[in-house]
């Protein structure tokens, strides 16, 4: 009897913990750049972690591109810019991490079709601790509307 109670409690705890993790990370302000078939686009969004513990975005998956990688843009001396693949993005406890132009972004490499402003891109985000999140990202030429 005691063994059964322990098993039920364990299952309940797992479900509870899973629920907390799945609710504690949310995504807002997502958009992706328009780009033509065969070329690359970038997806941007804000990750909100309301947990009291940190997490990491470890993978992004999409069927729109041949490859999807987590990238960061970096600056070196003499106005030189570059970008490189990184393994994960750290999301500290109770924080927001912004993926934005000139910084962190999701690279959609080798697009399988043109993506324009009327389209959207499906993206699955996998975290180290939280449950994976599926998001639908609108394609926007957002820079066009940005004041300078």
């Amino acid at each position, binding site marked *: 009897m005691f063994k059964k109670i322990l098993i039920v409690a364990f299952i309940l705890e797992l479900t509870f913990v899973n629920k907390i993790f799945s609710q504690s990370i949310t995504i807002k302000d997502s958009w992706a*750049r*328009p*780009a*033509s078939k065969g*070329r*690359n*686009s*970038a997806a941007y969004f804000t990750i909100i972690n309301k947990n009291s513990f940190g997490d990491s975005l470890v993978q992004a998956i999409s069927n729109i591109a*041949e*490859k999807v*990688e987590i*990238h960061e*843009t970096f*600056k*070196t001396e*003499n*106005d*030189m*810019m*570059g*970008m*490189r*693949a990184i393994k994960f993005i750290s999301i500290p406890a109770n924080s927001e991490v912004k993926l934005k*132009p*000139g910084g962190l*972004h999701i*690279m*959609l*490499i*080798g697009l399988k079709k*043109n993506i*324009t402003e009327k389209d959207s891109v499906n993206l699955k985000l996998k975290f180290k601790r939280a449950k994976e999140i599926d998001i639908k990202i609108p394609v926007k*030429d957002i*820079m*066009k509307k*940005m004041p*300078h």
Partner: protein
Amino acid sequence: MDFARKILKIMFNLKLNKYFILLTIPTTIIINSCGKNFPVIEDLSKDKFLLVNQDSNAVIFPENFKNKIIVIGYIFTNCPDICPLTTNNMRLIQEKLSKEMISDVQLISISFDPLQDSPAVLKDYATIRNLNLKNWDFLTGEKSTIDSLTKKVGVVVIKSDSTMFDDGRKIYYYVHTDRIQLIDKEGRIRKNYIGSKINIDEIINDIKKLE
């Protein structure tokens, strides 16, 4: 000997008039930096780089754009983050020029990744962004020509990370100078700007000074 004596006399006089020196040096600096006299960074007037535009038309740069002020940006189309910022800034410059009714300015985007960026790829890049190509050319060419050009204009391009596709194809990314340049009607580079962060009003004012 007479010349040396004259110089010494001038120096002596200037020494006596230190307030004159204190006043004239900053004034000269301000006049030179704000006036029409941008320093010539590089003279391309004798160069003839044989390139092609997005419509596969041959272009001799900068010769074909003589008597026009050129705003030129350096990009590669596999870059989805920084280069679109530069391209968008070129678009904003074009829009502002149009609003201020400034004509005779040619916009050019040059790809420093010619092995990937064919005229057709550049055409797609412009089309999908709805860019107005009326006074804007996207140029590419032979790799050796592009390499000579980037070297001459002071744009550093270094092959860095890459992505390998399942079928063995490989694309490269570059660490590169984030650059937009202003070229006068005689084909001389007059000013460098950070391509992704350029102040649009600043370059418009600079163009007005060169008109």
